């Protein structure tokens, strides 16, 4: 108990509060710029934390991570350009809301859901880190493979109006994800002698190209008649369109809790990440809704589901990191580096050896959520001013921003890739091939392939091996139920 009080007291010093505040602000700004992300900010900030006290340093980095999840939603909603890959699904309902003149409503529900999801997973982390870590350690390649298969079944529910076209797009995304070095034999696949393709096609190039630049091309063509229109209708003056009422928030609570639980569960498993959590959360909300047809057309529950799920990953990623020393994703790996710099070795004995510091970190996380809420709330009004900028300024500028983001992610070659993917995105849009399933296929493809091949090696080709993995079997059973359910509901949608 003394350690808990001392830890929280450490977190509540003015210096630490200022550091967490600065981290959240930095994270929101970086998250909102396509091509940059909280990850970039953390990578830049890690060396800066060498000179800070341990709790302040970790609080600063965690603040960036938290701010990034909120920032990513801003450009997804206002420009249909996700600031970070996990915010891609935020655009599905967020951008249509902005197009209806309700950008502030979309941004507010994104902020509230993000902070709620994040707080939920932080509380889970604080209360049940140890038992969850023991569970997470049992998640080997077969379990990860089965979770990815479950996530892939989500595709079937997101295929849009035509199941055939949706599945073709998903398979094409998976095919493109195989470009680069083979994960097992290190032989190259579809590299065509281009050295830059050895590492595969960067996700940023696909995300920026298909989602952002594809939309930019579409809008440039749409607005090529020389008007001074804004790209979005001016934000509505109606008070109801500019706020989230208590009744609206209450109607989203179940969705937020469901998504937060999904995000927390996925975050506790190393290697899956917030993009998968966001898509699974979105699909779960759509399935549970009384009006699934309203999803994708500006349903606030769609925004809430995605933001709560991807933000919940942030807190629970610390479960394997603190309890086992295994970083759950790249951001956690960078933060692990900061732990090591400060002489802290995460692992099973961390709580007993550095209890005060860990409770200090937990305190900083709670402060981070409060800062995220306050900074986000204050900043939304400024972000909405984007809707007042004429289309013939915003889209050329966004086009340049996209190219710049691509360059930061993969150099000059990525700029060419982004341009190619923009054309693909435009064609997918025009022909009504789901670019959402294309991106899901691209994101989940490498995860599926790696875990599948690891499972084959572990099982030595014996299918009976799976009988000894009850968690994997349960998840596969769940995936089968989802597939059957989807086939039954979609059989008329060829």
């Amino acid at each position, binding site marked *: 108990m003394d350690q808990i009080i001392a830890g929280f007291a450490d977190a509540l010093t003015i210096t630490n509060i200022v550091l967490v505040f600065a981290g959240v602000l930095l994270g929101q700004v970086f998250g909102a710029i396509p091509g940059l992300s909280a990850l970039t900010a953390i990578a830049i900030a890690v060396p800066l934390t060498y000179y800070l006290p341990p709790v302040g340093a970790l609080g600063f980095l965690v603040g960036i991570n938290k701010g990034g999840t909120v920032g990513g939603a801003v450009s997804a909603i206002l420009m249909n350009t996700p600031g970070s890959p996990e915010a891609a699904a935020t655009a599905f309902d967020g951008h249509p809301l902005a197009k209806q003149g309700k950008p502030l409503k979309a941004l507010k529900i994104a902020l509230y859901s993000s902070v709620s999801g994040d707080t939920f997973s932080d509380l889970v982390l604080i209360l049940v880190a140890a038992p969850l870590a023991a569970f997470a350690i049992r998640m080997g390649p077969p379990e990860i493979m089965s979770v990815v298969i479950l996530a892939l079944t989500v595709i079937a529910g997101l295929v849009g109006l035509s199941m055939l076209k949706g*599945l073709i797009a998903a398979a*094409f995304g998976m095919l493109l994800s195989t470009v680069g070095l083979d994960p097992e034999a290190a032989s190259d*696949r579809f590299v065509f002698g281009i050295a830059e393709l050895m590492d595969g096609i960067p996700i940023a190039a696909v995300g920026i190209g298909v989602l952002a630049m594809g939309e930019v091309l579409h809008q440039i063509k749409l*607005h*090529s008649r020389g008007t001074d229109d804004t790209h979005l209708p001016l934000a509505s003056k109606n008070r109801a369109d500019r706020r989230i009422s208590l009744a609206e928030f209450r109607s989203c609570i179940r969705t937020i809790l469901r998504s937060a639980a999904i995000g927390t569960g996925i975050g506790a498993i190393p290697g899956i990440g917030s993009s998968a959590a966001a898509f699974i959360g979105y699909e779960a909300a759509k399935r549970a809704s009384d009006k699934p047809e309203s999803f994708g057309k500006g349903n606030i529950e769609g925004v809430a589901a995605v933001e709560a799920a991807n933000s919940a990953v942030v807190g629970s990623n610390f479960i394997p990191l603190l309890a086992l020393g295994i970083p759950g994703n790249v951001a956690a790996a960078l933060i692990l580096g900061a732990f090591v710099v400060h002489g802290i070795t995460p692992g099973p004995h961390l709580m007993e050896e550095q209890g005060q510091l860990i409770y200090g970190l937990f305190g900083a996380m709670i402060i981070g959520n409060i800062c995220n809420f306050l900074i986000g709330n204050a900043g939304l009004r400024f972000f909405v001013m984007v809707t007042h900028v004429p289309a013939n300024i915003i889209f*050329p*500028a966004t086009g340049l921003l996209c190219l*710049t983001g691509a360059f930061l992610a993969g150099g000059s070659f990525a700029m*060419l890739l982004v341009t190619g993917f923009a054309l693909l995105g435009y064609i997918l849009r025009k022909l009504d091939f789901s670019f959402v399933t294309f991106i899901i296929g691209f994101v989940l493809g490498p995860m599926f392939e790696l875990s599948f*091949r690891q499972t084959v090696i572990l099982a030595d080709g014996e299918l009976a091996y799976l009988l000894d993995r009850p968690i994997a079997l349960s998840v596969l059973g769940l995936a089968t139920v989802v597939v059957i359910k989807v086939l039954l509901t979609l059989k008329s949608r060829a």
Partner: protein
Amino acid sequence: MTQRKLEAAIGLFLALLSAAFYWLVIPVYAPGSMFAETPPDLLPKACTVLIGALGGLMFLHRAFFEAEDGAAPAISLLDLRQMAVIVACFAAAILAMRLAGYIAGGAMLVAALMVYMRTRSLLRIAVTAGLTPLLLYGLFELLLGVPLP
């Protein structure tokens, strides 16, 4: 050409392209390996077969089972021609960035796209084309120390 016929043609094209990819491209550009327990071409082949099969199904469905509603095709040659002009602007800007630097290439891109969107005010074009790359350059190169082309 109607939307139904266009989609039937796309389905057939995908089926034929997948077959060519399976037999001609994968064996050359994603060959098997003696060091891997699972062949490296397994996933590419599975995806290609899936795309081909679904493309074939789409062709059959649109060509023989879907009723003709006379809807105009969602994309036309004119659309593609206009898109080619916009993509050419981006390609030229990338080349200009490599040859003359980020600010010149960026200004060229923004100006070209604004002209394409028929912006009439020369002042607006000059200010936007000049300020946008300068602001981004200032943010990344000067403030964050991230090098741009």
